[in-house]
């Protein structure tokens, strides 16, 4: 395994139908699906990017709709090192919700989480849609709360990769690596186990150790 790969757990937050999954689909597969059904069946997606000779592997967690009725589990935020808070530039309500998620992240997630505020669906402005959230509003919120800020279109791909590159650049690679090493050491001494690996192991049907 390449030792300079840093794994980053990235969580998605935002109101329903702002395009959270579409942004990920664009980033991971460079694809876009019109009228996409709400997220079904994706545990999490991964994508690697290389930044200054370091490889960052994003493990992207979708809310799977659990945010809709305030039912996101604490597990979702656990150990997340980065978050995308997404809103729809044509829907002011989704921006109010974005403020709520930023607050929630500061309360629930780890202190040094890197948050990117993302105004999505800018393509709709060219297609006659009306902008309801000014770019300045987004910038202001980002500045106040120390967030990265982007406006994107998952449909055209505009700025989508920049969001992830921006996060990748802010991730303290060295620290993450050291932390990984430290974790590995600790893990081996305290018996963390990989259930799936064991399942394929020859030991699964082994005899009695007594």
């Amino acid at each position, binding site marked *: 395994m390449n030792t300079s790969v840093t794994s980053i757990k990235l969580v998605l937050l935002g109101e*329903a139908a702002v395009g959270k999954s579409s942004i990920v689909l664009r980033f*991971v*597969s460079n694809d876009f699906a019109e009228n996409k059904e*709400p*997220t*079904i*069946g*994706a*545990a*999490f*997606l*991964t*994508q*690697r990017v290389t930044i200054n000779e370091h490889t960052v592997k994003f493990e992207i967690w*979708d809310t*799977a*709709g*659990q945010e*809709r*009725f*305030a*039912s996101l*589990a*604490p*597990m*979702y935020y*656990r150990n997340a090192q980065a978050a995308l808070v997404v809103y729809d530039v044509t829907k002011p309500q989704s921006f109010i919700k974005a403020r709520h998620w930023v607050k929630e992240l500061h309360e629930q997630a780890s202190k040094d989480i890197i948050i990117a505020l993302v105004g999505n669906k800018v393509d709709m402005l060219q297609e006659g849609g009306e902008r309801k959230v000014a770019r300045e509003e987004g910038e202001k919120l980002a500045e106040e709360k120390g967030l990265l800020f982007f406006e994107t279109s998952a449909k055209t791909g505009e700025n989508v990769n920049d969001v992830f590159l921006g996060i990748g650049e802010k991730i303290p690679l060295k620290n993450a690596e050291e932390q990984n090493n430290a974790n590995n050491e600790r893990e081996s001494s*305290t*018996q*963390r*186990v990989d*259930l*799936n690996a*064991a*399942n394929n*192991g020859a*030991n*699964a*049907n*082994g*005899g*009695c*150790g*007594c």
Partner: protein
Amino acid sequence: MDQESIDTDYDVIVLGTGITECILSGLLSVDGKKVLHIDKQDHYGGEAASVTLSQLYEKFKQNPISKEERESKFGKDKDWNVDLIPKFLMANGELTNILIHTDVTRYVDFKQVSGSYVFKQGKIYKVPANEIEAISSPLMGIFEKRRMKKFLEWISSYKEDELSSHQGLDLDKNTMDEVYYKFGLGNSTKEFIGHAMALWTNDDYLQQPARPSFERILLYCQSVARYGKSPYLYPMYGLGELPQGFARLSAIYGGTYMLDTPIDEVLYKEDTGKFEGVKTKLGTFKAPLVIADPTYFPEKCKSTGQRVIRAICILNHPVPNTSNADSLQIIIPQSQLGRKSDIYVAIVSDAHNVCSKGHYLAIISTIIETDKPHIELEPAFKLLGPIEEKFMGIAELFEPREDGSKDNIYLSRSYDASSHFESMTDDVKDIYFRVTGHPLVLKQRQEQEKQ
């Protein structure tokens, strides 16, 4: 919240987010059923949740200590995930199997429990996990060890269709006591095998056919063989991660989640009296059937006659005489204390991210036999050394009155006093069968990770 677009019709409504309900919810969603999962509480886990220290004080103490005092003694509230029901996973058990086949292992990390200990004549001893430990263990004399070895060889080489491997024993006709007799095992060894390996909580099994005991011992041995130190696994951040993981599985397959949503009314069909739906603050939802924990339909449950006392103890030191183990189980067999059922102690620590640095959580549990249940736990308290804080609760165990076929209301059982999840997964499989009409067959989920 865009309320106008909430679907009102589902295939299944599930009430309560205990682990039993969350596994069923996940399995049914993967099967393609449209599931609505509701909990009256604002957190996952139901009766078997893992809670923070402040929630624990609120639940168990009438006069909780101040936030300042609590934080100065025990650190940040967020660092605590205290299980309300103590259990471990058998490494080769059915829950592990379900976790692997549903891929929920992706969301939860597990650690081995460092050791299993058994109480004998006032002291605790490590249950040997391999041959080397067995040879040096003071639990048995040298000749008894040889007999024990023969017995375990019989267990591991037994094949159903090879009569010679049965050594003349019939698992369905011979009692377990007769099996012990055949191998010449003494009382102390019987107690060790029956309580520390087969994990029976009383001695009723001795006069029953040997098969269930055989299967339990085999499971124990295979579980120890899997990772080496003990047969048990425990999830990082506590048992509450398990229902959350299965809820995520359900959601990923289209399940809808509503926490903090009490049931205002249960609707029944006028003509048949069968379940029709539920009324909540978010609207009325309908489904042909409902799966729920006993707290949602108390009138449809009855007491099993058993009551369990559980004592959650916070320590600021490892348990004495355990080589500073970060996690362990202690079994106090009933006969050692002149009781009818065993006392269990489950110990985990900051190594599992369930408490702040330097702390240990010990949960003592047993089936109540007297009218002074807290005194019944005394021998276990004594093993732990100084205790910083203690939370005690008594739970009556409930089971459904009917199998659900009449009214389409399928109820789970209360979490019992056993030290592992095997009876819980039996309940899951039983409910799954009654709900779907076919037995649960676990299939590997398709590989979905895209590189």
